């Protein structure tokens, strides 16, 4: 098959699957949270119904808003979230399917992923500022603070990975997701390094809810404080776009964590191809296993943390990330660096 055809198929399937799974994920998240709260909770398909209803509703654009920013921000958020998901997923899918080609070796640059993570948030901020409501403005300011606070631990993690990859696979580009996926970070590491990776992973436990704007880090949308904050003025289809973007971004961030920390597929664990009834079912199995990992990470880092904590204050958030989470991730980074097997290189 032509490389370009493969690429297009993967992009399109990722997009369709991503939208479907993202919305399904929202439903599962609400269901699990409800279970934690001793309730039944909405049906799992609730996300789809909400979205359909929002698409059919009237869309109001406030009079005192900057119209083009107000209308453009949801689209930018949606497109970049989709791009983020595609950008993380395609190299991983390539790795899973074992389709190797020099063209794809550089796919999925970490630095670009960090920027793509930022753009939907910035679109939200722009939309909030343009809405012309004081509550949205406060929400935007808070979103900026959360965005900046999470940047340092994120960057530290990425650099740690790059250093590790440059040692593990010197022949491949160090900043690439493909490299990270094909060389699990746990390999070739002493106890200090393993502890370091665990610290990085636990830092990500809090980065995920912060990136996706879930309690305890949903200050930007705090319903009881600033009335949904930067989404306060959005209605109808623009709100639907933001919701879809958020669903895609959540899936993207969780997928990133899975790709970085738990990239092992079924075939690596079972040690070979999966064959049932003479048909090679490795690829479907790999995808199912990947979804299982995603749902576990999703329900722990988003659903469980969401139900077991109160919303923090914005000053506490910045302190929490700049001191605690950064300290944890830098310690992890240092531990990886001083690992004797890396030092030996």
């Amino acid at each position, binding site marked *: 098959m032509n490389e370009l055809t493969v690429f297009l198929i993967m992009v399109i399937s990722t997009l369709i699957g991503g939208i479907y799974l993202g919305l399904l994920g929202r439903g599962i998240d609400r269901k699990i949270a409800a279970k*934690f*709260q*001793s*309730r*039944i909770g909405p*049906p799992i398909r609730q996300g789809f119904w909400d979205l359909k209803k929002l698409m059919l509703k009237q869309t109001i654009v406030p009079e005192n808003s900057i119209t083009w920013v107000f209308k453009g921000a949801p689209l930018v958020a949606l497109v970049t979230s989709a791009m983020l998901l595609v950008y993380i997923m395609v190299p991983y899918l390539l790795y899973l399917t074992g389709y190797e080609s020099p063209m794809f070796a550089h796919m999925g640059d970490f630095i670009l992923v960090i920027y793509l993570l930022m753009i939907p948030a910035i679109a939200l901020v722009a939309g909030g500022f343009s809405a012309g409501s004081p509550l949205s403005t406060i929400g935007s300011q808070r979103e900026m603070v959360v965005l900046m606070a999470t940047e340092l631990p994120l960057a530290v993690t990425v650099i740690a990975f790059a250093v590790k990859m440059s040692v593990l696979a010197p022949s491949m580009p160090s900043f690439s997701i493909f490299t990270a996926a094909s060389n699990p970070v746990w390999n070739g590491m002493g106890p200090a390094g393993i502890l370091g990776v665990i610290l990085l992973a636990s830092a990500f436990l809090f980065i995920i809810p912060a990136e996706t704007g879930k309690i305890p880090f949903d200050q930007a949308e705090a319903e009881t404080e600033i009335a949904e904050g930067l989404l306060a003025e959005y209605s109808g289809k623009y709100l639907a776009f933001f919701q879809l973007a958020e669903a895609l971004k959540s899936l993207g961030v969780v997928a990133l964590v899975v790709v970085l920390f738990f990239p092992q597929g079924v075939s690596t664990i079972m040690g070979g191809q999966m064959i049932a009834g003479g048909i090679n079912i490795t690829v479907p199995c790999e995808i199912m296993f990947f979804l299982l990992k995603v749902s576990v990470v999703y329900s722990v880092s988003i659903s469980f943390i969401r139900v077991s904590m109160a919303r923090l204050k914005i000053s506490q958030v910045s302190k929490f990330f700049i001191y605690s989470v950064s300290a944890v991730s830098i310690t992890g980074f240092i531990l990886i660096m001083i690992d004797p097997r890396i030092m030996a290189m």
Partner: protein
Amino acid sequence: MLSTVSRIMQQFFGRRSTNVFPVKYAPESVIDALAGGDIHPPISMPEGYRGKLSYDFDKCIGCGMCLKVCPAKALEDYPIMDTEKNRPSKRIVFYRGKCTYCEECVKVCPVGAIKLNPDFMMANYEKYGDDQIEGIEKRREFEVKEGQ
């Protein structure tokens, strides 16, 4: 922190406390969409719940005590001609949308013509529709008769 987590875990693995109540009362097409799908009654109503009012026209002697104690003026009187004693008497109609369900009229009624039932499903589209006014049929009956 630990106590919270333990409580959450308890709730996760324990029995859910939701009573799947209004399935019976939802429109047909919605029932499929509802979780569970079992037919559940509402949580058991205690004896003496102050719900929907019912009024016994034949028992009423038209003393008008209920009108005097009602804090919300939910009762309205209408005069009728008492055929047996051949003198004017009073009967009431009762507006469900005005009632405060305090049971004072029940306590004050000397013949027990007014009762509060444990039924509480009263939502409707019309404020003063026929099923929101107790005793309206009787009133119509008499108005028609008077007209004749």
